[in-house]
């Protein structure tokens, strides 16, 4: 009786990689430069004293705002890296948090417990985490679909247990491990230097976007896109699916670990939150919120998610919410309630994510554009 259908995960509702489709004509000349322009704007943002009341607590150049932006940018990068797996290759991993956490804890432990200089610690942590991704990936990729998702989840769970158990007194268990900043470059320490962390996060995001963009547009990216649709077919074409998936998995792991290094510096430590499967789930949420398989979707999704995650705590305790009747104010004061609801609405009203907004708006813009007179 209860027979099982093949444990396949349906490919994500992904778009065709932009990198593999010719650019649209209207923006053809400008388009390649837009990301650089955006990067430049983001880079000079800290020189602005503009206040955006309601959006940020302080002016753009205040440490609080920059800190928040830095966290958002790191998660934008993480989501983009995760999308390399999920949106572009069709691999549903539930254990991506592990490699991020390995980056965070690796750096933290090497700096704080072993007293290594930052650059050495970072290099070791990223190398180590990438190797870990390659090893675990090599095992996990023997399965496909939901089974793969569960094996990765299981590996990540072991990581979480080890961290929580305070194995060897290295991780600080549930209390986490504050980063020892005494050996760090002074430019990365202190509230006044938050801007440097912001730039670091921005650089990380830029690197991830560049890497993901180049890889998806590369011959390998083409194979990954094919894998997402039909793995068997790739095999019959003469390519080893396993190898390509492993490369994607390892690369994504390495990107996540690098994000971990940056995050560790921004937050000034490690805490077990980041090892949980919830983090992977939120990455998934970010990617879908933004639009899997698109260049900017996951980035926007990551930034937006983290922004909401941080700002909703303030929203929940704001006067506007507290003055509402209890039926409304109680749930609204729970950030997770708002976040969950926003997410559900997003799935409904923006299928394809934020990135599909432009195409969904085209009919509108077309209607608004004046038709040339005959």
């Amino acid at each position, binding site marked *: 009786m209860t027979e099982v259908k093949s444990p396949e995960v349906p*490919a994500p509702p*992904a*778009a*065709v990689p932009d*990198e*593999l*489709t*010719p650019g649209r004509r209207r923006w053809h000349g400008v388009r390649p430069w837009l990301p650089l322009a955006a990067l430049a704007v983001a880079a000079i943002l800290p020189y602005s004293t503009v206040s955006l009341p309601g959006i940020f607590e302080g002016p753009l150049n205040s440490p609080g705002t920059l800190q928040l932006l830095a966290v958002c940018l790191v998660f934008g990068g993480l989501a983009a890296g995760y999308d390399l797996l999920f949106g572009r290759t069709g691999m549903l991993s539930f254990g991506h948090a592990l490699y991020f956490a390995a980056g965070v804890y690796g750096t933290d432990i090497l700096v704080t417990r072993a007293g290594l200089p930052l650059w050495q610690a970072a290099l070791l942590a990223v190398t180590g985490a990438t190797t870990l991704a390659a090893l675990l990936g090599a095992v996990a990729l023997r399965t496909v679909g939901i089974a793969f998702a569960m094996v990765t989840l299981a590996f990540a769970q072991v990581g979480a247990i080890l961290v929580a158990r305070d194995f060897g007194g290295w991780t600080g268990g549930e209390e986490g491990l504050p980063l020892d900043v005494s050996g760090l470059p002074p430019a990365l320490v202190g509230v006044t230097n938050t801007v440097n962390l912001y730039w670091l996060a921005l650089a990380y995001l830029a690197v991830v976007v560049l890497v993901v963009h*180049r*890889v998806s*547009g*590369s*011959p*390998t*990216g*083409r*194979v990954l*896109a*094919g894998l*997402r*649709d*039909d793995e*068997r*077919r*790739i*095999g*019959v*074409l*003469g*390519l*080893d*699916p396993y*190898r*390509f998936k492993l*490369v994607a998995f390892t*690369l994504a792991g390495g990107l996540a670990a690098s994000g971990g290094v940056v995050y560790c510096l921004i937050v000034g430590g490690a805490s077990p939150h980041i090892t949980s499967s919830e983090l992977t789930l939120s990455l998934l949420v970010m990617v879908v919120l933004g639009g899997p398989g698109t260049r900017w979707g996951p980035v926007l999704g990551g930034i937006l998610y983290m922004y909401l995650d941080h700002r909703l705590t303030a929203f929940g305790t704001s006067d506007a919410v507290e003055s509402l009747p209890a039926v409304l104010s109680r749930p609204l004061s729970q950030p997770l309630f708002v976040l969950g609801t926003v997410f559900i609405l997003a799935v409904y009203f923006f299928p394809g994510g934020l990135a599909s907004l432009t195409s969904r708006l085209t009919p509108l813009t077309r209607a608004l554009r004046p038709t040339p007179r005959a």
Partner: protein
Amino acid sequence: MLATRGLTWRIGEVAIVDSVYLDLAPGEFLGVIGPNGAGKTSLFNLITGLRRPTEGRILLDGEDVTALPPHRRARLGLGRTFQASSVFGSLTVRENVRLAVQAYRGGSMKLWRRAAADREVAAAADAALDRVGLQHRGAALAGTLAHGEKRKLEIALLLAGEPRVMLLDEPMAGVSAEDVPELVAVIKSLTGDSGRAVLMVEHHMDVILELADRIAVMHHGALLACDTPDTVMANATVQEAYLGESL
């Protein structure tokens, strides 16, 4: 070129493919016919490595490939199409073929090159699309193609890999009458010169008769006959088990 030696695939007690001995010479076109469920697709699955045989060996150019995974066999020049179209649905038609070309030419494991910049791949892909008459659909998503178009794309994917041995699983199924001659011409052009060998399953007898040098008849997993078209068509068992009375 391609040979199977006592190839057998059993599920439980039942032999789906039963001790098949086949020999395919370079340049030869071997048609495979047989009632539905005779084991033709299964035979293809064994040869391409998607299934492991329970007994027997598969030789490609005299070399034993029985234990190789599908992609290794493909690289040795073994290509196939699928009975149920399997194309990369979320890629465009052109991208589908480029992927196949790239897979064949090597250099797929290049993470930092721009795939679109490779003119040779693009040119080869366009040539393959041209041959099956799909160039006007190049920008469409393969997943939205109508059935017949998918069949053509399947063949284009196969062509792109320039395989030396090609296995075609019912390429004509669902192709509109108008397009059949065109597709037949394409398939015919595959063999002519290059010493390529083709193994084709097809239920359209006229197509088989037009193309095939020899016809193999499968029945209950076993090879009933393997001979010239005339001999096979005259065979009483084939008449009875496969062709039936004509419409």
